[in-house]
Each structure stands twice: as structure tokens, then as C-alpha cells.
């Protein structure tokens, strides 16, 4: 059995080494995607473009605007005297917020009266609009308190009797990249292992080399293991590289024991590689195999909780996500890297992966034997 497995594995390695395209798919593409996606997939709200219409033009109104724009969140793109023109900027998409300071702003403050500052927000990006709105409200409250204190007025905005002081664990600055990079790593591992195995076996079918293998006494298990072993190792290498790059470029913390990630990755790939063989056993051509792989990748990614939290999904859908190996891998990566979770903490995820891996792999072996015999 070992002789046969090693013979197949050596053949796969030789073919891969000779084919720059496969090599690129296996190593270069995932890294480029990790870096690109890492930069692109970012839900942090910063540098929101603001157009300012200060109709008051007083020391107070200028101080208010300057203080607002001093932070990272907002960035002035224009200052227009006319509120209508400022609103037009938002409609045209050149600014996300139009901040309109009414005439009499300073006078009202000095008199100790309340004054309304209008903020027009572009709601087409709901996430950004909500964050901007909350930030503005909090800023206005803070600034008003500071103004009252500095001018010795009785504060109009008193502190509420109950105050929530949130403290965010694991990711105190709520840096979304730190959250997304592990998800990206799990996606890449899925794409690489599923597509490469499915296409590789389908190609052997197309070329007739599979038939030539099948007239040898090699067992379908040995054939599968030999085919999958090199790609599993390359997958683990990709995973290590992704974690390293995530830490080096995006500041993903490495709080837990990395061998748990390795174990999780190996169990995860048992499923993804098995699925690849499954797809290939049903497909007749490389094109069909590619379509089949693509058909699996999208729902697996969407259900994994990598992009949107599983708790936001409808109740009937949530239990189904347990059948998505990527969900467990994402949880393992986030758990180990961000929270320093232990083996015991992640036992359920690891067991799910092991169970699914063995099932899928065995089913693929049976399917392959049936298809080929």
C-alpha cells in the first residue's frame, strides 16, 4: 500500500513542479489574494468624507468643526458656504456627510440655548452611515460638555445616571482586518485544495491516464491518498504562510498555540480534498469539475460566518452552518489567533472537522471505486 501511495504522490509532485500554472494556483495566487483581500476587506469606518457648510463663521463654529475633523473618523473634502450646495455634494457621492452649522450657532451657545447642527448622511452604505451618525452624536455631547466647562456655564448636557462603559476584548481597537484575515486564510485553503484536486483527477480522466492506472492492481484508497497527500502538504504550507503574513502585515495577533491551527487545517483539508475527489468522480471533464467546485465554494464561504455573523442568519439556516467545514476552520483560526483558545475550547470544532473529513473522504473513495470499477 505504501509503495503505491508514494508512487502516486511522487508522480503528482513531479507533474506539479513541471507545471508553472498549477504551482502559481497553489502558492502565488493564495498569497496575493490574502494580501489584496486583507487590504480590501475592511469594515473599519475611517476617513469619512465630510462636506462642511458653516453658515455661522464664528470662532465657536470653527472650533467645533476643527475638533470634529481632528480625529481619524472624518475628513473634510470641501467647505461650502451654502447648505444646498453641501447637500448636492452628498447626492453626487463626493461626500458621505454634509455637516450644516446654522447661523446663530455661537450666539445660541453663548446664551446657553440649545442649537441644532444638521448632518445629512449618505445611507447607501448603511454601515458607514450608522457609525458616522453615532460618532457625531457622541462628539456633539462631548464637545458641548467641554464648552460648558470652559465657559463656566451650567452644563446643559448632564451625565446620564447609568453609563455603559464598553470594553472590547481580544480586539480592543475593533480592527476588522484582524477579524477577516483568518477568514480569508480559510477561504484560500478551500479554493486551492478543492479546485486543484478536482481538476487534477478530471484531467486524468480526460487524458485516459486514469484508465491506465485502473488496469494496475492499485486500490482506490491508495490512489486517493497518494493524490491528496502532496496537496495537503502544500495547503499546510499555504496556511503557515497566511498566518505569518497576517501577523506581519495586518497585525493579526498570535495568542494561542499554532499547532492547533495546523491540526485544524489538516482535518479541514480532509474534507476539502475529499470534496475535490468527489466532484472529480462525478465530472467527466475538467470544465465540469471546475463548475462543480465553484458550486460548492460559494455557499461554503457564505455560510461560514467569515463575512457576516452566523447569529444574523435566519434561525432555520443556523444549524445548517454546522455542516460547513469552513465555519469550523474560521472559528478555530479566530479562536487560536485572536483569543488564545486552547485545544479543549476548540474540541467541538475539531471533532466536527474530523467527523466530516472522515465521512467525506470515505464517501469519495466509495464513489470513485464505483465510478471507476
Amino acid at each position, binding site marked *: 500500500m505504501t509503495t503505491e501511495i508514494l*508512487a502516486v504522490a*511522487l*508522480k503528482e509532485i*513531479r*507533474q506539479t513542479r513541471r507545471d508553472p500554472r498549477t504551482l502559481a494556483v497553489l502558492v502565488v495566487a493564495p498569497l496575493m489574494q490574502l494580501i489584496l483581500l486583507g487590504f480590501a476587506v475592511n469594515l473599519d469606518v475611517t476617513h469619512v468624507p465630510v462636506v462642511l457648510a458653516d453658515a455661522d463663521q464664528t470662532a465657536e463654529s470653527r472650533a467645533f468643526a476643527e475638533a470634529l475633523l481632528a480625529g481619524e473618523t472624518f475628513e473634510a473634502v470641501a467647505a461650502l458656504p451654502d447648505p444646498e450646495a453641501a447637500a448636492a455634494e452628498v447626492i453626487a457621492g463626493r461626500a458621505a456627510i454634509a455637516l450644516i452649522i446654522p447661523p446663530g450657532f455661537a450666539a445660541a451657545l453663548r446664551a446657553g440655548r440649545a442649537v441644532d447642527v444638521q448632518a445629512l448622511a449618505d445611507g447607501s452604505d448603511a454601515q458607514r452611515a450608522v457609525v458616522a451618525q453615532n460618532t457625531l452624536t457622541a462628539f456633539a455631547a462631548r464637545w458641548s460638555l467641554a464648552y460648558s466647562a470652559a465657559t463656566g456655564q451650567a452644563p446643559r448636557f448632564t451625565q446620564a445616571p447609568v453609563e455603559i462603559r464598553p470594553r472590547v476584548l481580544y480586539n480592543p481597537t475593533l480592527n476588522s482586518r484582524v477579524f477577516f484575515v483568518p477568514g480569508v486564510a480559510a477561504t484560500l485553503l478551500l479554493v486551492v485544495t478543492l479546485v486543484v484536486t478536482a481538476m487534477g483527477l478530471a484531467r486524468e480522466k480526460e*487524458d*485516459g491516464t486514469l484508465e491506465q492506472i485502473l*488496469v*494496475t492492481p492499485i486500490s482506490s484508497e491508495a490512489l486517493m491518498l497518494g493524490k491528496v497527500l502532496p496537496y495537503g502538504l502544500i495547503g499546510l504550507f499555504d496556511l503557515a504562510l497566511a498566518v505569518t503574513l497576517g501577523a506581519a502585515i495586518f497585525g493579526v495577533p498570535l495568542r494561542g498555540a499554532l499547532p492547533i491551527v495546523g491540526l485544524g487545517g489538516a482535518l479541514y483539508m480532509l474534507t476539502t480534498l475529499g470534496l475535490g475527489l468527489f466532484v472529480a468522480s462525478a465530472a467527466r471533464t475538467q470544465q465540469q469539475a471546475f463548475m462543480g467546485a465553484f458550486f460548492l465554494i460559494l455557499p461554503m464561504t457564505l455560510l461560514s460566518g467569515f463575512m457576516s455573523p452566523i447569529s444574523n442568519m435566519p434561525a432555520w439556516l443556523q444549524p445548517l452552518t454546522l455542516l460547513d467545514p469552513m465555519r469550523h476552520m474560521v472559528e478555530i483560526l479566530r479562536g487560536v489567533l485572536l483569543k488564545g483558545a486552547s485545544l479543549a475550547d476548540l474540541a467541538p470544532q475539531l471533532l466536527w472537522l474530523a467527523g466530516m473529513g472522515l465521512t467525506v473522504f470515505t464517501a469519495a473513495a466509495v464513489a470513485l471505486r464505483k465510478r471507476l470499477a
Partner: protein
Amino acid sequence: MSAYAVEVEGLTRRFGAFIAVNDVHFQVKQGEIFGYLGANGAGKSTTIKMLCGLLTPSEGRATVAGRDIARDPRGIKRVIGYMSQKFSLYMDLSPRENLEFFAGAQGLRGRARKIAVEAALNRADLRDRSGQRAGDLPGGLRQRLALASARLHAPSVLFLDEPTAGVAPDARREFWREIRAVAAQGTTVFVTTHHLDEAEYCARVGLMVDGRLKALDTPAGLKATHAPGRFLTIEGAPKAAMRAAPGLMAVEPFGLRLRARFEAAAPLADPARCAAWLADQGIAARVERAEATLEDVFLALVGVEVL
């Protein structure tokens, strides 16, 4: 163990409503070159695939090297070599890498594998090109590599499915020299072809027509049974004149000449007498004795030229 290398009884394979192989019976002797002839789609490849364990028969049974194809497909794969119709080694690997892989898949390891691979490279004359990509080899050499690969584990029965399809005539002759040498060493060779000249090399020939085995005999036996009589080629006589010849069984154009078949006892079956008979009618023709060919057998059996 059976005296036959291959025994087939009532072998049938259906694909839906289509019957690719229909109730076929035959035996192949140990060390024999057995030719399987037929047009494309006649059921040749399907028969081979069932015997190699690549397809399960719908009905009937068969043994290869004494092993039942339904009960012991793995066992059969240890003792057979198979060369498919299309070159099916890895184009992107070198001959040596291909051989190493298939030797490994056969379970050969260590020294045994090394020896088998070196011997195969020698046999295929690929020692100097063992590092080149198999895809870059000329057709004839690829064919020999495929044959060498099929023989790595010294199989007792070799199945060759159209081994010379698309190979130049010189390379074909060379290839057949090798096949005869293999058979001379005691290996049974089961070969399909649609080259009639190649069928002449076979000890016995089976003829498949639409999934049925229509005839099976030595080439000479087939000719005696299905194309009896004596053959003449005639140059310079019109077909209409020949039609009147007593004892004539058939006459067909043969290039610019005619090819006539006479009853064995007919006096005009003698070339000199036939020429004299034509001269009596004022026709100066050249008449020569000819041999029956497998083509005549095909025409007789199938009625049309199928190959």
C-alpha cells in the same frame, strides 16, 4: 489452471438499449497472438475493457489467466498488461518517470522496480531519451514506451487495443516484430486492429460485426471457409467477358485489373487456360494466380467493405 489464457462464455455488455457486445464465446490459447478484428463500434474495445476489469459485463462470464473477471478483478490486474487505443501515459513526464510511476502502481519496489524500469527503457530504445518529455517523442517511440510500460510487471496476458493506430508503416512493422517476440517468450497477446495485413500476423482471428463474433479461425482457415475457390488477377479483359466464364464464382474490379474467384475444380482456375479461353474470344489478357486475402473474407461475411 486452465489451458487457455482467456476463456469467454456468453459475454454481453449493454449500454442502455444498445448492445455493444452480444453473447460472445471464444478461447485464447496460452502464448497465442489472438487478433480481434472489426469496424469502429463493433465491440472490440468494449470486450477488451471487460477482460481488463475496466467494465463489468452485463451477462456471461470470462476468465483471464484462470481468474474470473467478476470475482477477482484485482487479481487479474496483476497478471495483465493493457495498452489503450489512445496514448495514455503522462505527456508531461519523462519516459523514466512514467515507467517509475506505473511500476510503483503495480506494487514493484526497490531493486525490482529499478530493474524493471531499466529493462523497459532498453526494450523501447529510450535509454538516450529517458529524460525527455513523453509528449515530445515521435509517435512510434511513444507506442513502444506504452508497450514497455504495459509489460513492466511481466504480465502473462497482454491486451493491446489498436496499438498501431496512427503509426507510420515502418514503425508498425517494427512494433509487430516486437509483439511476435513477446509471444515467442510465452506471453499471450490479445490484439485488436483494423489493419488486415496485421491480422495476418495473428495465429487466430476473430471477426466482430455489430457486437457479434461472426467468425473465428486461423487466417488460412477463414479464407478456406469464407472465401473458398481459387483467385486470379486479370489485366486487359472487360468484366462483361469474364462474367461468361464457366465455373466463375465472383468477379470484382481490383484497381485497373479484375479479380476473379473460380470454383476450385473449374478448369479455368488455371491461369494459362483462362488466358487461352480469353484469347479464343480475341481478348489478349494477362492472367496471374492470386491468393485469397482477409479482405475477401470480410466481403464474403459482411457483404460490404467495412474496414
